[in-house]
């Protein structure tokens, strides 16, 4: 074995390797069921669907690395979708241009509330993000009158979510690649990233090292809120409009993807490569279950059992003596 391969093996997190192994196994299993499962077109389609989850999971991961959790994902996704579509018609063409940034900024604003409460008010993230989720839901219910909004998404939103670029690569995938590249750089090469990992391990130690940990925590939550909303913006582009509860289906998969990718739910440990693997894994699992035409009840059961089994395979905490 070459030295390069050896050092590669030493550097790869076993959890990430297993996650990629599971992806291969799922593809193999799927190919027995239908040969179209491993066709390039189908795989690209899968990656495109995975992109939305991938973008949302990126934010979830950064927060989980802090040792916190963001349970406001569902309605921040909806906020992104609803706010961006709501502004499209405003002072044409201003609305068209502002739709995406406005949607994302609304998510950032909610994220800042989360972050401020966690960092400065020291409220456990599990509670405050639930409360912010409830407030976001309340605001959206008031905004839409309880019905799905009729506003259509902008051209740019549809282009990013549904269009294809050179070689037929979906734009959504390119967007995810950009977000993922940015996240990887942020986490591995910047002071912010180091601090995120540090806070996940011991915030006291980070504070006593003279790093402004509270600011980092607030930024991380703002980032998570913005990414959730950006996911919502793209989902609204994909479906041409926003909908009540459009984010409900993303909380559990996002957290599951991050954890299946080897990021410790207790914080401080994990790589973005793992999150990519986790996102693809969850997406494939969902689509295999739907291709097999199992009804919703069975899909939920299998989904839950498979996640537990995969976690048991490698997501276990180390035994403490």
């Amino acid at each position, binding site marked *: 074995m070459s030295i390069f391969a050896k050092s590669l093996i030493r550097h790869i997190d076993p959890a990430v390797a297993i996650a990629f192994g599971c992806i291969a196994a799922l593809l193999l299993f799927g190919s027995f069921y239908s040969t179209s499962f491993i066709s390039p077109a189908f795989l690209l389609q899968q990656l495109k669907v995975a992109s939305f989850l991938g973008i949302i999971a990126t934010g979830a991961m950064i927060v989980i690395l802090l040792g916190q959790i963001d349970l406001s994902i569902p309605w921040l996704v909806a906020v992104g979708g609803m706010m961006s579509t709501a502004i499209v018609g405003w002072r044409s063409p201003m609305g068209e241009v502002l739709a995406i940034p406005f949607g994302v900024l609304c998510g950032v604003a909610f994220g800042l509330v989360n972050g401020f409460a966690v960092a400065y008010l020291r409220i456990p993230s599990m509670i405050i993000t639930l409360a912010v989720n409830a407030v976001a839901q309340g605001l959206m219910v008031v905004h839409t009158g309880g019905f799905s909004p009729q506003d259509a998404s902008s051209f740019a939103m549809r282009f990013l979510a549904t269009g294809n670029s050179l070689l037929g690569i979906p734009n959504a995938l390119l967007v995810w690649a950009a977000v993922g590249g940015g996240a990887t750089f942020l986490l591995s*090469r*910047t*002071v*912010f990233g*180091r*601090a995120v*990992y*540090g806070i996940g*391990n*011991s915030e*006291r*130690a*980070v*504070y*006593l*090292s*003279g*790093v*402004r940990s509270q600011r980092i925590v607030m930024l991380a939550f703002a980032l998570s809120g913005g990414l959730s909303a950006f996911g919502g913006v793209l989902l609204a582009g994909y479906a041409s409009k926003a909908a009540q509860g459009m984010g409900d289906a993303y909380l559990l998969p996002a957290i599951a993807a991050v954890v299946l990718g080897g990021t410790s739910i207790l914080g*401080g*440990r994990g790589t973005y490569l793992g999150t990519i693997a986790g996102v693809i894994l969850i997406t494939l699992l969902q689509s295999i279950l739907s291709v097999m035409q199992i009804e919703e009840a069975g899909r939920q059961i299998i989904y839950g059992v498979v996640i537990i089994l995969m976690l048991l395979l490698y997501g276990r905490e180390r035994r403490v*003596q």
Partner: protein
Amino acid sequence: MAFFQMEGVSKRYGGVSALQNASLSVEMGRIHAILGENGAGKSTLIKVMSGVVTPDEGRMIMEGREVQFASPAAANRAGIACIFQELSLLPDLSVADNISISNPPKHFGLIDRKAQRRIAEEALARAGGPDIHPLTLVKDLPLSRRQIVEIAKALARKPRILILDEATSALAAADVEKVYTVLKRLRSERLALLYISHRMQEIAELADDCTVFRNGRNIATYRAGTKSDNEVVELMIGREYSHVFPPKPDVGRQETPILLEASGLSWTSRIKDISFRVRAGEVVGLGGLDGQGQRELLLALFGVLRGLSGEIRIEGKPVSVASPHRAKASDLGMALIPEDRKTEGLMLPMSVRDNLSFAALGRLSHFGVIDRDVENTAVADMIRLLAIRADGTDIPVGSLSGGNQQKVLIAKWLMITPRIILLNDPTRGIDVGTKQEFYKLLRQLADAGRAIIFYSTDYAELIGCCDRVLVLYGGAIKRELVGKEITERALVSSALNIGRQAEEAGEKSVAAR
């Protein structure tokens, strides 16, 4: 036949063996001290004895019968109770609940609170804490009182062997005396006591027998008092033991500029009107009993405490230090080596490199992006400078030995080239060899013009390392000792705030002899 015997016990963790063919015999009615450097196998030994870990090989014999403990509860039932270094109390439960946590008195299957309270009162009285209310929540008690509860809890199990692992390390001196009295009484009640401590004078005061461990083996067992301290230390480290402390520079050398000056510092009831100056090149010790405001003083200087009154001047300029972030900025240049390296100093699962560069990242980056070449060079320099023994910079710092972790913690702060270094009991729980290296480094840093404030709970360190010692009592400076004045007698008497008369009387009686 001894009351309790351990023969040929071995225990490996992964590839590392913590105990190798270790033996020990414990008699009733005696205090048996276990000595050894960190990593010598003492902790594993008592973990085996108290059922926390099961040995790979070997056997244990109690009263002539072979015994095996699958859990701490099993060891308890056999009559072995252990007081661990890390407290094993439950903060949210009451003292009474804690004392009878493992076998509460019951009444119709439910816990009998009255009986439980009676047991607690008795046990607290035996352990020297009759003033502790059994219904107090443990989290509302100060650390030294918790240790008394810990002892009461062990006693309530009616043990026949009591193991104490660094039981006095968290105690104030007044409480230490109480614990000594308690332990001596227990000895007269025919209990077997196993005592682990790093403090030689404690062992001299208490022990009947001593066993020295090194590299997981028992090296020697002897009657207390039959070996000199130097001989014992040599047994422990297995090498020549001389000149622990580097020589201090001569007194009366030229005056260097004042780097740090504090005047009238006060904070809640813990710090009272503290004023002092530290010159460049000086090592100033903080002495006194544990918990007299020394930690708070260091935190106050480092900008951690809110509502601090008084003035801090650096190079004569008044500064306001609102956070550690401000404190480490280059115009102030302060560094604080915190007390608890596991939670406050280092991020154990993170790599050696990430830990080393953490405080200095501002200098190693441009616009928030880390310059990896600069970082690697700086990290390599530090590893060389402090002779940190690590198998590469990518391994988690938690996998290093305690001494090397402490070096990483110090190096992390040297990376910002601080001018003022605050040290909070930095040698606690590290081995003799690393301590020696640390003392040398301390002097080197001072010689290079840094101002050092050094809090230590070990009087020998204050005597050996410091140019001056400020002795704190009740949050105020009670006495300043300079140069040759720094003696054990002076430190102890001023720490107890019993004035100079006692000390002078002592000196006279020495002179008269």
